[in-house]
């Protein structure tokens, strides 16, 4: 990575960069900072629309003791488990495609489809797949695999994992395309050299190829983690609506339910602040890890 600012020893102050970032700053101020300030302010108010009253930190305390909110928080953390799973599967698929098997271009086209399908369509079709007597269970029963039949979205203990599976499905294609692109841009000498040296395929992958695309993998994992924390609402909403019995509740759905559905915007705002805190902590950890990496 080139460190431009360190190259020139004569540090002539330039003004144009500051001008160029103005549109970005204005946009961010309007779309993010202004609403965030409002949200933080709202979080200290209770009641709902038309009847708001100042309650100090009561919302934060209430959420801290609300078993549903805590459950949502834990669920979001559980969804983070999808990150390594998605990455590993995408990597496996990308490596296979990389080896130029027949029809790999077609596979890649098809595997990207889930990414472009809107969440409502995903929710509709997967509901039919995952219902108690849906397509998946019917097939499993036909194949005699009754032990594998579960109530995927109707059981409180596994509903969140089913949602995790759908998220993996939706994100997989993006990962495959990104990783394939990265692999294809590697210089050929790298993989050829390993073959000459007599390495097995697995060794070749592990020690030669994967480290080369490490940064891409990290980039991908960051995006997937961000999705799992903050962009799962459409999937949860259409698949289970957070149920049954709030077992698959996640934080952004909680915010929607209380803020938009019930008008308790103060409580929803406090929940949003908690979500932002969690995300900030994770980003902080990530940037620390990156700094350690680039310096080592």
């Amino acid at each position: 990575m080139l460190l431009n600012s360190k190259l020139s020893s004569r540090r002539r102050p330039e003004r144009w960069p500051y001008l160029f970032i103005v549109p970005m700053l204005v946009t961010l101020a309007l779309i993010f900072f202004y609403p965030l300030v409002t949200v933080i302010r709202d979080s200290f108010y209770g009641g709902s629309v038309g009847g708001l009253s100042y309650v100090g930190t009561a919302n934060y305390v209430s959420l801290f003791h609300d078993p549903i909110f805590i459950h949502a928080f834990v669920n979001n953390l559980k969804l983070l488990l999808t990150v390594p799973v998605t990455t590993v599967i995408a990597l496996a698929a990308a490596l296979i495609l990389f080896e130029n098997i027949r029809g790999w271009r077609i596979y890649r086209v098809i595997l990207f489809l889930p990414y472009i399908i809107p969440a409502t369509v995903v929710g509709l079709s997967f509901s039919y797949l995952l219902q108690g007597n849906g397509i998946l269970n019917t097939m499993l029963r036909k194949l005699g695999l009754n032990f594998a039949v579960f109530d995927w979205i109707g059981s409180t203990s596994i509903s969140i994992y089913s949602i995790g599976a759908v998220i993996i499905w939706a994100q997989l294609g993006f990962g495959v395309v990104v990783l394939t692109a990265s692999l294809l841009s590697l210089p050929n000498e790298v993989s050829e050299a390993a073959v000459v040296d007599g390495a097995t395929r697995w060794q070749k992958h592990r020690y030669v190829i994967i480290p080369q695309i490490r940064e891409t993998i990290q980039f991908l994992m960051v995006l997937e983690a961000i999705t799992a924390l903050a962009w799962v609402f459409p999937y949860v909403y259409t698949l289970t609506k957070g149920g049954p019995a709030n077992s698959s509740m996640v934080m952004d759905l909680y915010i929607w339910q209380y803020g938009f559905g019930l008008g308790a915007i103060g409580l929803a705002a406090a929940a949003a602040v908690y979500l932002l805190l969690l995300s900030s902590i994770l980003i902080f950890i990530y940037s620390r890890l990156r700094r350690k990496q680039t310096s080592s």
Partner: protein
Amino acid sequence: MIFSSFKRASLTAVLSASVLIVLAACGSNSSPTAQKTVDPYTGKLVYWFWAESDVPGSTAWMQAAIKRYEALHPAISIQLVPQGSDTLQGAFETTAQSKSGPDIAMQWATLPVLTPVWRGQVASLKGLVSSTEMANWLNTSENVSNGEVWAMPLYLLGQPFVWNKALFQQAGLDPNKGPSTWAEFLADCAKLKAAGITPITMGDKDGFFGSWFQGTVGTQNLNSVKDLQDLYAGTAKFTDPKYSGYLTLLAELKNKGYINSDVSSIDLTQGWQTFAQGKGAMTWTTDGNVASWIKAGMGSKLGVQSVPKVGTGTLSTFYTATQSISAFVTSWSTQKEAAGAFLTWIHQPENLTSWYNATKAFPADKRFDSKLITDPIMKQLYALDTLPNQLWAENYAPPQVDSQGLQVAGQAILSGSSTPTQAAAAVQRVIDQWRTQQPADWKNYKTWAGL
């Protein structure tokens, strides 16, 4: 930030301007202003409409009705904006925050209507609709606060208990006799199960069945609406068996295998479709579904009645019916008289007839000619819907308690993740939470209920 000062500086102008501009954006030529003598047949109205989910075809009918109205009164134009079920309450609350939006809005009866009323978001109908007119409306008691009626009903929605006569016969039960007591109900379920038929088929993924079960079965040891009001806003506790006993009954049905095994993963509509496919013998449904099943040829197989009797309170003799959705005029509307005139016109006899013929849903008006109903089962349903003793208990629950409490309890029982005791305690916790989080709404509820 800059916008805060912008808001503060020009709030009044912006608020009235935004209403005008929202209306003007529809491309109208007239510019509505506050007038001294108001002509109720001039101007532009925006009507946020919801009924399609209850009554398929209602949106098309309303659109056609509006065209007829506009032909009668060329100086008025009405824009119909259909609302989605999932955003019905949220969209209204969001628009209410900025005190702008539709002239006529709709919300489900009682609490969802009265909450905006208490928040000052609804205009009084006095002076907008004559009292002689309103006297013809049915079920107006569902939207009364401070001695006046605040919203208009459109149709009646009953919640009949339905059974499949052919499947009853197959199990050796009398096809013409539905279970009238809980003991009979359990006995019928046992016989059906023994014959390899799923006794009850419902869908609870969306949670509504939990509220419905509470409303039809769970209120049978109560004596009046006052008991419900006392529960939500007074001193009664949900953990008292007269309120939460029904959870044990629901658990019993589930544990004995009388309910379809995928109940927690299919939604209400799909559960009904399963019944229509003949895969279950009994279900709770709405008038509209019965009508469409008759249309699909199932008429001879359907038996309808009120839910089996299991309690001893006065409410155990009540039928579950409501106006479902109610229309009201918003407090910020600048076209209140025009809105009132339109609402009055919708209830004129010729429109009632036209509505029934198009949708087969029963109009909520005394002037409806019930001789238009020809099908024997629909006649039965109409008789049930117009019984003097009715209650749709869900209407009396604050929306938060309904969705977070009653519906969640139903799902917890049906998915086997809570015992009835645990579920009851959870509902009480939600009631307490609502009171803490929404003290203004609780206070209004108490005043309204006379507690």
